[in-house]
């Protein structure tokens, strides 16, 4: 019973971390319909940015993540503009060709990281990494609690931004009916570009959480492609609260399997759950 309870608690923490690394994709892929397979590569790039600031100036990883957020916002604006001019503007098969574009970007990012940092693993130091809180016999890694709290705050803030602010509503509107928005005098491309910037900026913080939770290496993005897309699709495309719920379900399921049923079954869990959700509810957990 203790093992099961522990697995659930650690699973919730892990799930919130999964939500943080997926929530940007929920905007770019879920709302904007951009096949952003370079999302995990952007995430790893952000981790290296955090690593550099932590290593060179001893800045706390979370503060470093916050510091690079504006840069990532600009990077997102630029990436979407290139994608739009090159693919989206030109026709209906933009999504298919766009996948190749983003794969290319992911590959370039990997190579640039290797050239700059080499191929070795990198990690950051902070007072909360490597320690745990004790509750009797039960111990929780503090880095996971930090990741949980920040991920929860990030997801809630993004959900509030998209539902309560003028620009947030515009982003939702452009996702629902681009033409209608155009008829109302708005420029859907600029709104989408701004939204893509937001989705990329979020990765500054998510990248910090990634390197807080575990060391990173240049090709780590490949490990996250499946998980992040699984969370976003299972959540229901574009649903931020759905992303949080789906990620927690995935985290808890993985943790229980790892603890009680054998680690080798864990990778199958995400895809089994995805297939199960799509079979019962094709629009995802909170999709419309």
């Amino acid at each position, binding site marked *: 019973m203790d093992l099961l309870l522990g697995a659930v608690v650690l699973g919730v923490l892990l799930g919130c971390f999964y939500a943080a690394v997926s929530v940007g994709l929920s905007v770019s892929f879920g709302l904007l319909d951009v096949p952003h397979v370079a999302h995990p590569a952007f995430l790893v790039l952000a981790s290296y940015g955090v690593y550099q600031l932590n290593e060179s100036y001893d800045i706390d990883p979370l503060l470093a993540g916050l510091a690079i957020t504006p840069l990532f916002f600009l990077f997102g604006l630029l990436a979407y503009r290139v994608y739009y001019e090159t693919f989206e503007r030109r026709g209906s098969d933009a999504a298919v060709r766009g996948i190749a574009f983003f794969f290319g970007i992911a590959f370039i990012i990997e190579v640039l990281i290797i050239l700059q940092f080499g191929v070795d693993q990198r990690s950051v130091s902070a007072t909360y990494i490597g320690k745990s809180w004790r509750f009797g016999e039960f*111990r929780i890694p503090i880095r996971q609690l930090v990741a949980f709290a920040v991920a929860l705050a990030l997801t809630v803030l993004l959900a509030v931004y998209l539902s309560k602010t003028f620009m947030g509503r515009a982003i939702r509107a452009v996702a629902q009916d681009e033409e209608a928005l155009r008829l109302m005098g708005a420029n859907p491309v600029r709104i989408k570009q701004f939204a893509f910037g937001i989705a990329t900026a979020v990765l500054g913080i998510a990248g910090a959480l990634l390197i807080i939770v575990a*060391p990173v290496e240049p090709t780590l993005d490949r490990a996250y492609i499946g998980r992040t897309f699984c969370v976003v699709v299972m959540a229901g495309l574009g649903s931020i609260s759905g992303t949080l719920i789906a990620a927690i379900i995935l985290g808890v399921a993985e943790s229980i399997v790892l603890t009680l049923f054998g*680690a080798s079954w864990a990778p199958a869990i995400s895809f089994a759950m995805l297939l199960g959700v799509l079979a019962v509810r094709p629009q995802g957990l909170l999709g419309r």
Partner: protein
Amino acid sequence: MKRRTFLGGAMAVAVVGHGSSALAQQPPIKIGMSMPQTGGLAGGGKASLLGIEIWRDDINAKGGLLGRKVELVVYDDKSSASETPAIYAKLVDVDKVDLLFAPYATVPTAPIMPFVKQRGLLLMGNFSFQVNSKVGHDMWFNNAPWGPADSWAASFLDLAQKAGGKNMALLTADQEFAQNLALTARDVARKRNIPIVFDQVYPPNTVEFSSIIRALKAAKPDIVYVASYPPDSAGILRAVNEIGIGDSVKIFGGGMVGLQFAAVMSNLGSLLNGVVNYNTWLPEKSMYFDGTKEFFDKYTKRAVEAKVDPLGYYLAPFGYAMGQMIEAAVGATKSLDQKGIAKYLRENEHKTIVGPIAFSADGERKETATLQAQFRGVKDKDIEQFRSSGKQVILFPDKLKTGELITPFEAGRN
């Protein structure tokens, strides 16, 4: 000067001059290999390649092999097993290399074994484990110090049993190298009547090990044998530090890849203390042979520029040793005949910078020289500390031993 002396001298100069220009014009001896330059094995691949390159530069400075320069033909296999068969076919059929070195590690090497056997080619193995056990190629020679298949697990379990360990937990990565290690560990444990109370195989890409370590701790093992790959080793040790492993554990470690690499060691720092893990070369007194110090002097200078492991203990000197063995065999047989070279390698003991090497019939070391060493007194964020002796005390083999095991594991962590 008499006219005859002058003519003789002139002719001699002409002959020597002609001869050396003929040698210089001879095509180079090409040694082909794939090496992980990107992907999960790249850290090791780059360090290994630098070791081989230092040998190439040394041999060329001495005039080359058989009076011909040595040239390396290297491709990046991206740490992928699917890349190597095509690369080795190209090396042999298109690049027409004279000799083959294997890529670093088990996973990229395993798929080329049938190819080299079918073509009857000599392959100098580079730190793979048991890739020839089923293929049975008689021209395979592994530079790694592993020795007989079960010696790795046996040496760890010897230490564990002496420390009072009576049951074992096994945590292994789901990939070929770790699974081969786990197989031998299970086998040795069965022969010694050591019950296995926890046996988990975790998949690659496991993000978080806290849950697994909790389950392992609940099994209350005495001996914890871990066979992991670099990204996982760090995650496992972090989780052990945070979740705890229990007072019952006498010894922890064994087959964790990554704890030999400077970046990982520096990242983990004091979390390494107490861990008993395999290694290949360490800066302990017993590990210096002819040329070892000179090699590391050169490596240390070049590693910074090449952005590779600044310590380079694990693989680089063995890459150099691989070249030394070829140098000895080609020198002795005075040819590039691969069967002749293989015969020489099999029948002789070879002096290298990592000690004497002799091969058994399967191409692995006759006698294991795999070290089991315990991390002691390691501080955080200090890579230079690993250059001095005493940070990794050698417990096995006896002839290289530099200290005794501190047990239980928790006591070793202080």
